[in-house]
């Protein structure tokens, strides 16, 4: 089980993404971070902390559950729903940054874009992911990437975060 990111690596990647977000959006004024549960939500929470400590201001932050918008619902057992929390100021005219742990086929992000359009019309939607493992099935790319990891389809990228798994690390596991 090779570890591809250790705890300090993960911290550094998040800090860099925070800086890149601020650079691209010229500050933190109109940005809204939306994490995709579960681990994307945790990452969004951490990114918001890093950004607000860099800029000394509070960041609009929330979660967006995409389960009800998946296109593969009828192909697997029903999943339990996770919380969706949209900041009270809404997303109209904001630069929304979607955050997920692993970018793979791109289908989760497609569903997230569908879900997002129900809540309003953002000025722009950007995507930040901790790991980009390739194998895209849709024309979707990330604006901010923690680390690109070339993988084969029968590998599994496991992102562990202290809040959920008790440890910060990213591993590659072989599936059968």
């Amino acid at each position: 089980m090779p570890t591809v990111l250790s705890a300090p690596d993960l911290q550094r990647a998040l800090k860099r993404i925070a800086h890149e977000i601020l650079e691209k959006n010229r500050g933190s004024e109109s940005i809204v971070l939306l994490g995709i549960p579960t681990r994307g939500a945790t990452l969004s929470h951490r990114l918001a902390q890093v950004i607000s400590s860099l800029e000394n201001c509070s960041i609009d932050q929330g979660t967006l559950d995409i389960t009800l918008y998946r296109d593969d619902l009828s192909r697997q057992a029903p999943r339990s729903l996770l919380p969706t929390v949209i900041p009270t100021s809404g997303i109209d005219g904001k630069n929304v940054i979607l955050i997920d742990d692993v970018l793979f086929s791109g289908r989760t992000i497609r569903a997230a874009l569908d879900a997002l359009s129900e809540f309003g019309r953002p000025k722009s939607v950007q995507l930040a992911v901790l790991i980009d493992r390739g194998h895209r099935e849709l024309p979707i790319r990330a604006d901010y990437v923690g680390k690109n990891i070339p993988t084969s389809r029968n590998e599994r990228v496991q992102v562990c975060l202290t809040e959920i798994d008790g440890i910060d690390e990213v591993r590659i596991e072989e599936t059968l």
Partner: protein
Amino acid sequence: MKTHLLTIEDLTRDDALNILETAVELSRISDTPIKKLPTLRGRTVVNLFFEDSTRTRISFEAAAKRLSADVINFSAKGSSLSKGESLKDTAQTLQAMGADGVVIRHPASGAAKSLADGGWIKGSVINAGDGTHEHPTQALLDAFTIREKLLNGSGDLKGLEIAIVGDILHSRVARSNALLLQKLGASITLIAPPTLLPVEVAGWGVKSSYNFDEDLEKFDVVMMLRVQRERMSDSFFPSEREYSREYGLNAGRVSRLKKSALVMHPGPMNRGLEISADAADCAKAVIVDQVKNGVIVRMAVLYLLLGGIENVRK
């Protein structure tokens, strides 16, 4: 989750909590401008109603439509059922039309189970009331409402004192509620005249009483039941006035309830019989909330039963 929702009896505590949790997330979405979700697009839900119903049928229809399912309403009146078609033939017709879910209400107890076990249809069966047996979605929406109003929408119902009052004998709502609320940890007292309290309640593990005025102060929830005149072939009480005086909820009894207590009624109400107009409209009454939550809880049930793949469900 199982393939069908037929009774509260065969629902585990975890299944019930899963439905309630799913409903909580759906209710959060319902509070936003979103009125429609794409989740069940391309699925067909048939409302098969052999008995008159307004709110349950409309509630299921609204729930299915909010999840983008196609809804076919089928009521006994004006259909080939009134020409004497059997349940089996009707079911096979529905199967041929490709129903993914069948919501059934029937005057015979056990009808939903016959439909599910008959092997006539592949889809999920949801019991929307069978005779005097069970009405599981009503119990789930009542549990959801109690949780929302008294417990901030989380956890089980441990420690709550709940009274179910009235026509227990004919009430599928009473049975489903007694079983579910008890499964979730509440303590249940059934209150009814001796003629309307079936002998079998001894097996439900609940308390029972003939006296509504006793211990009225201790209840967190008072759930009134409709006097089901259409199912009464005998006289079960001397007069409506006497019933109303002994077992009706009126302003006097409401004033003795705890400040935080809830007054519930599954509807439709017989105002002036089991519940007086001022009790039905008092600040403790959550009868309209029950209707609103009905749509959300039924969305959760439809999602959990129809949202997944067919061969995983089987």
